[in-house]
């Protein structure tokens, strides 16, 4: 632009033509007008971020940016809101969304999806600020407004659907069925069928009415308690191990969700935390939150107190061939542990298929 102004200015001097002088004046004025209007476009703006209720790693959620214009007369135009967040390093742009017009004394909401790599892994994502950028009106110079908006969001591990063949492959089908075989009594209620349950429990009349598979539940049926043990201590931490650990966390999340849906009380045991076995959707959320914060380390710690561990079935999730033994405390507790010697990656592949 400056080059163009210089060229036209030279043309004006060279030709001595007043109309070319006018064009020169016009260009200079446009540049000046941009300088005057551009900062005003970002005045009196209020920026808010609305985070989703839950963010699951790898899923696509919407993060909303709301911009409120408190000016009385003039709307705001051509705004680009950039959201900065980080896990441990320096903040980076995790999403940007355009807000082309915010009317005077009005507000506008725009959203960006959680597609940034930062949201692909479970854990805590720390938001820092929202930067509103604008090149309004003519795009010569960019102006920005930095709005501090600190917030944390917990990214939960994803839940995959457990397929029946896998269930059978793991030998769980018969085992779980045996647990329930003795159950009889008054009808407690009806619920939706979960894959892997025996077909005899399907209540066909209700299924026909509801157009989906429904199963019966009985009052006196004892709820079985299951604890998933996820070891979080390793001799040395490698990238491969970390990768496998992540897969093991996903398996733990998927299995706990599945077991709770089929009527079990599920607890979670790691080397540093213990979640009591319980059922229900809220407990699934609790387990997921716990799994979201689980980290692998090299220092071994004492197992947390497990008051009712003897009444539980304990499933140990091993995710590496090197970690194929139970901790001594757990062995001493003589838990009925079943060791799944399946590497996390293989398991995930099976789960995904």
């Amino acid at each position, binding site marked *: 632009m400056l080059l163009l102004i210089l060229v036209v200015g030279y043309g004006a001097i060279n030709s001595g033509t007043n109309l070319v002088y006018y064009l*020169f*004046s016009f260009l200079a004025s446009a540049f000046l007008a941009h300088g005057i209007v551009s900062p005003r476009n970002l005045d009196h703006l209020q920026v808010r971020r609305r985070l989703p209720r839950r963010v699951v790693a790898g899923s696509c959620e919407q993060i909303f940016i709301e911009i409120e214009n408190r000016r009385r007369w003039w709307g705001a135009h051509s705004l680009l809101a950039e959201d900065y967040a980080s896990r441990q390093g320096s903040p980076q742009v995790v999403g940007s969304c355009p807000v082309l017009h915010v009317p005077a004394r009005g507000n506008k909401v725009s959203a960006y999806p959680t597609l940034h790599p930062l949201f692909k892994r479970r854990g805590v994502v720390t938001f820092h600020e929202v930067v509103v950028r604008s090149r309004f009106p003519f795009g010569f110079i960019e102006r920005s407004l930095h709005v501090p908006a600190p917030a944390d969001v917990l990214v939960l591990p994803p839940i995959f659907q457990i397929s029946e063949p896998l269930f059978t492959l793991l030998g769980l089908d018969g085992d779980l069925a045996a647990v329930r075989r003795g159950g009889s009594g008054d009808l407690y209620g009806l619920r939706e069928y979960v894959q892997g349950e025996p077909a005899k429990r399907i209540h066909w009349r209700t299924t026909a009415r509801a157009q989906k598979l429904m199963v019966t539940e009985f009052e006196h049926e004892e709820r079985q308690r299951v604890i998933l043990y996820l070891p979080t201590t390793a001799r040395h931490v490698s990238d491969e191990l970390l990768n496998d650990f992540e897969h093991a966390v996903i398996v733990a999340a998927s299995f706990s969700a599945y077991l709770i849906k089929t009527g079990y009380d599920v607890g979670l045991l790691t080397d540093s935390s213990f979640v009591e076995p319980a059922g229900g959707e809220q407990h699934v959320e609790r387990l997921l939150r716990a799994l979201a914060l689980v980290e692998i380390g090299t220092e071994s710690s004492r197992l947390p107190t497990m008051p009712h561990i003897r009444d539980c079935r304990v499933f140990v999730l091993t995710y590496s061939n090197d970690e194929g033994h139970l901790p001594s405390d757990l062995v001493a507790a003589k838990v009925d542990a079943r060791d799944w010697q399946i590497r996390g990656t293989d398991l995930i592949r099976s789960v995904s298929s």
Partner: protein
Amino acid sequence: MNLWDRFQLSISLLALWSTLTLATTGEIRLSLMASALALPPLAYLLRRPLRRVPWWIWDLAVLLVFVRLMPVVRQNLLNATVYFFISLQCIRLLSFRRLSDAYSIYVVSFFQVFAAALLTTSPAFGLAFLGYLLLLVRSLLLHSSLVTVLRALKRTRAARETSPPLRRTSDLELIQAVTEEQTGGSLLRPTLVLGAIILALSVVFFVLVPRLSTRRVLQTLGPPPPSEMSSAFDENIELGKVGTIQLDTSVALYVKPLDEVQHPSAVRLRGVALDTFDGKRWQRTSWASYREPFGMFCLRPYPLRKSMIIQPANTSKFLFGETFPFNLLSFDFQQAVLVDHSAGVAWLPYPPTKELHYTVVSRIEDLESRDDPEHYSRPSSRQRRTVAQAQSSRTDQATSDPVAAAFRIISREFELVAEKLTPSNDSQQTRRHFRHYPADVAATRVTPDYLFPPYREACLRIPEELNKNALLQLAREITRGAKNPYEQALAIESYLRRNYQYSLELADPGTKNPVEHFLFESRRGHCEYYATAMAMLLRALEIPCRVVNGYYSTEWNNLAGMFTVRQRDAHSWVEVFFDGYGWMTFDPTPPGALQRPVNMNPILLAFTRYYDALKMRWYRAVIDFSIQDQRLVAHGVFAAVFAIGDTLGSLRFESGAGSITEELATAGNALVAGVAILFLLIVLVVILRRRLHRRSRGRRGLHVRRSHEIPRFYAEILSALRRRGYIREPSETPLEFATRVAKTEPLRPFHDITVWYYGFKYGGVNLPKEAHEAMAQLRENLRKRNK
């Protein structure tokens, strides 16, 4: 219409408009203009199928156009550049699918406007530029919105690891992903506001930017001069031709007096002076003509300026100015001007093909207040000595190049004349024309008092086919009793005016010479015959003279403050040379014949005059805006500031310590006083604005109209309560605070308001009407109590 379509429409309109702006100059070939004008709408209408054409085809087309125009570059660079840019614009419009394509369209459209600014001076350019400005602003605003959307979308895509890499045509695909709500809103208001800001600022810049002019490069870019053209006012004009011109009513030029206090009743425009008559045609002998590089062709500036606009209807190559040699200012013609100092005329290498604008400085010679040349003092001895030297050197210099030698002599003679020649009597009639100049300058004569002998000889020659004896006899009869050549000329002028009848319908002279037929038989004719007859009679008396062709107009436009000169105002008169004085104008045509009413529909005439007024204002304010005008503006601003100071100084605010302004005035600091007043005015405006703002808020406060105003209202209530001493403790929730406050009777509604506010803020509940009213009422009550 989505954002991209809006943008493409705006860009197409911009291209169309800039091409139209260039088309108004009339300098570009019609066929090219037609295709350039047809393509933008076509490109917009066919935008969807055109997107399927591979991009490399368009790039190849650009290359082909460039190669095709290479030979034209050698002939005319300006034309070749214009053609290339127009072609580039057409191709970019057809292949428009990337934002970067818009940049080339901006550049090309601006170049077209730039070229138009160089090629035209028409006020139509002003209107066209206004449209261009608005379209450009709108396009840039839409562009800015699109860039914002693209940046966001590209960042989002870049964040997705699985996304494919961006391809060349991805802009459009990305934009199509924009939701319908992202249309950018209405841009009418920002477009108009920004347009107004730019326009206002550019006027300020235009006035302030220092005027410099080198005219070095662009002169060479202009078209080559065409071959010599014949025109109505030529250096070789047949007797009777002026009469033919007088049948044409088209406008030849406009003349705006710039210096006169009162507008004159008529304007006499001198075009070409013809010295040689062969019995049927007048000719100008080319004694000395040379090219003036910068359009200046006089040795001294003279007091009165007139702004001239020659119209294309005038096909003469001669430049018109009033009465005697003049100076050209703000001349917009790129080529040199040819000048003949002996004839006192200037002309262009070829007739202008477009409207031509210039300012001419000249001395007006009033025929009614002429003075006998004898009353003027003779040249001083030093002047006579210089003339003698010039005459003696003439022979030596003429040996090499007679024309160049003649010019050198003439220019030296002009230098002599330019010295002051004080009239013997104080000629009030002469001086009354000049407003700003003292008598000695006003009386400065602008014509040489010495006539170059070969030119004198040409100005005395009578064609052989005329009967010299009959002419001499008639001349002596007419001038009987006249004491000197001046009185003889006056007598002949008067005789012709009184005894001959003006008519455009001429009787057939048969075998006789038309001049003799006019003088001795028919006694009817038009101005050309009058002028020729007077010239021949004077020459018979050995008085050098010549015929001048030009215009004489009385059509004054009150709205524009200028004369409209039509072709039918073409006129001929006589210039007589008096030794020791120079040339003087005589017009033998009866004055009554020169008053020609305009036969035009009154409505059309009024419209024409309004248009002419607009055109003249455009020229005065834009085209002709010069460094002198800049100085005038600066003086005006300073004068205004000092006038404020003076006004302040004239007021008397008596105080205990004496007059406040007296001290300022005595300190001579009127400027400071002006600034102080300005500052006070600004403060006053700010205070008034705030008051009005508060009032309007108060009026609006009786009813909360919009839901987004509710938090502000609630915050204002809290603020008002704080002023009354009700401050919420950190341990209190808003509702606990409201319960505490509501214990006081007048503030009881605050509890309900807080409950409503809770619902609105956290439950997304729309407030009932009574809630709005209660909030407004409470806030109003609190405000009154605070007062």
